[in-house]
């Protein structure tokens, strides 16, 4: 019997093709939105995880409240880690390596001294630089190598926004009056990245000290031998430095995995909110299906009467209409999934290339089996729920009144 009911439902959908297509378009759009959002969300997760998990043995030690995705560029508080701190960190059992990041204010000029601005500069050991940045982060030029002197890497905005003329690779700039050659320009990140490099001025620790005469250690990057110990080591590092400075919250040590967790948490919340918004489309779609089914019931009153007159039960009539609603929503759902996959690929490509520098995070949508199963089940539920009332209305018709209906 199911085959017959299916056949009837299918033929009815075919008979009223344009109306059916418009109805299933509604559900298709809803499912498309959900699938593409899930695909992009999952893709972002994978990208962030890929970017941060290679640093899972890394702990970032900084002065103040700590390194977080909310304040990736720390403000200069005037307090710094000391040489003693670094030596103590190196002595903690399990610590593989400690690299430091120096931060300070300096004047930057380009094209003559009249164009001078005060800005923050960052100094790093080449090894630390290589952990944090790679060639893929650069828009132009190349990263610094051991032995490089008087060379800097600059952010996208520094190169193209700060001065009237664009700074090019090989351009000469002056930091605190000392000449530097631009070796590389970072890609534009905008809001796409975890931390923004757009305003960065990066040089080696040696050049930093030569230029500023200071060695203010703002951030230390500690790598550990045992990845599983990274959380407890972060606590020990924090305690060691706080003891050195006699303050409870002088410094904070954050593991990359905890940053990864919080990034994923935030992305999860964002994704849920977006999917909830997309679900409104599904509610609208379900009203559309109900409307179409009610119209169909009215138009086919006579048919319903005939079916009952020749022995169809209320259950038979009801199942015909529910199958019809289900079929509509499943076709809509399936096409929504296909459109969602295409859509998410498009949106991901657009996000990856956002900004003139083509900087954003490289993003590949990830369509999981769960997303597809969810898309299909949601469309099924919508189809069944929205056709129950019309089907019930059809089943309750008196056969004689329905047969007489003109």
């Amino acid at each position, binding site marked *: *019997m199911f*085959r017959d009911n299916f056949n009837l439902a299918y033929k009815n959908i075919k*008979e009223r093709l344009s109306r059916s297509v418009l109805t299933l378009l509604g559900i298709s759009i809803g499912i498309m939105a959900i699938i593409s959002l899930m695909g992009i969300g999952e893709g972002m997760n994978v990208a962030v995880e890929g970017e941060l998990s290679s640093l899972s043995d890394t702990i970032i030690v900084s002065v103040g409240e700590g390194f977080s995705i909310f304040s990736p560029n720390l403000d200069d508080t005037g307090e710094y880690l000391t040489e003693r701190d670094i030596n103590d960190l190196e002595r903690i059992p399990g610590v593989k390596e400690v690299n430091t990041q120096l931060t300070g204010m300096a004047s930057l000029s380009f094209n003559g001294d009249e164009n001078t601005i005060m800005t923050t500069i960052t100094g790093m050991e080449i090894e630390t630089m290589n952990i944090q940045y790679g060639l893929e982060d650069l828009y132009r030029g190349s990263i610094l190598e051991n032995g490089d002197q008087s060379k800097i890497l600059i952010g996208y905005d520094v190169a193209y926004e700060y001065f009237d003329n664009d700074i090019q690779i090989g351009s000469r700039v002056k930091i605190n009056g000392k000449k530097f050659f631009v070796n590389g320009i970072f890609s534009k990140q905008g809001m796409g990245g975890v931390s923004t490099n757009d305003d960065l001025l990066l040089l080696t620790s040696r050049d930093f000290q030569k230029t500023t005469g200071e060695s203010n250690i703002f951030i230390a990057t500690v790598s550990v031998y045992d990845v599983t110990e990274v959380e407890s080591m972060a606590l020990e590092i924090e305690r060691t430095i706080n003891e050195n400075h006699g303050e409870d919250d002088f410094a904070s040590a954050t593991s990359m995995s905890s940053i990864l967790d919080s990034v994923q948490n935030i992305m999860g919340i964002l994704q849920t909110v977006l999917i909830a918004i997309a679900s409104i489309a599904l509610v609208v779609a379900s009203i559309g299906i109900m409307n179409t089914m009610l119209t169909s019931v009215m138009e086919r009153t006579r048919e319903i009467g*005939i*079916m009952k*007159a*020749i*022995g169809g*039960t209320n259950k038979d009539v009801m199942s015909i209409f529910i199958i019809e609603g289900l079929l509509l929503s499943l076709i809509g759902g399936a096409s929504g999934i296909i459109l969602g996959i295409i859509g998410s690929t498009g949106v991901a490509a657009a996000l990856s290339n956002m900004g003139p520098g083509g900087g954003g995070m490289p993003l590949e949508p990830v369509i999981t089996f769960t997303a597809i199963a969810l898309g299909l089940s949601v469309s099924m539920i919508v189809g069944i729920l929205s056709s129950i009332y019309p089907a019930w209305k059809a089943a309750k018709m008196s*056969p004689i009144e329905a047969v007489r209906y003109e």
Partner: protein
Amino acid sequence: MEMEERQEKSMNEDVIVTKNLSKTYGKGDLQVKALKETDITIKKGDYIAIIGPSGSGKSTLMNLIGCLDRPSSGKLYIDDTDVYKLKENELARIRREKIGFIFQKYNLIPTLTALENVMLSMGFAGVDSKSRIKKAKKLLDMVELSHRIEHKPSELSGGEQQRVAISRALGNNPTIVLGDEPTGNVDSKSGNKIMEILENINNKGETVIIVTHDPNIAKRASRILRIEDGVVREENV
């Protein structure tokens, strides 16, 4: 003993018995008594024509016998079952198994082919797909429509549609075949063919009841019931 046996046999041969069956439409001053307390007995193999002027209650009686409608009062027995005591789904079973209904306006499902239309009622009865196709083809062959089985109602003439409807009515081997003006919408040649088919069905032992306003058709029946103002009386053939 012999008499008792005859009596019992006669009891068993009563396929339809109505007791004070009546139907009233509307309420209060607008009340219309379409069928007044009616007692009729129809035996297996009867070929009955119900005649009467428009609005006399022919279709009301037909719809009550066909279990499409419920009476205002009275009883209807089909094969000794008091059918109006049954629940809706059990009534659907009676319609499916005991009754084959042929409508004046054919009432085929427009989206289905002739074959699928005939198969539909068998599907409701739970007959498996293979047997249904076989039976439906046989029935369509009987009404000389073997060459039209894949056609939709809109592609068939009125007479052809009515023959499909007759095939559909016979799908579940009903005890009673009811025709509400089965020739009312077709030309006289097609009408004749339809009557021949119904007579053949009756000759095979089925009970056939038709509503007609055509005296020539009524004459072909073995019994005539005339209705006037909701009152049924037997007319001599």
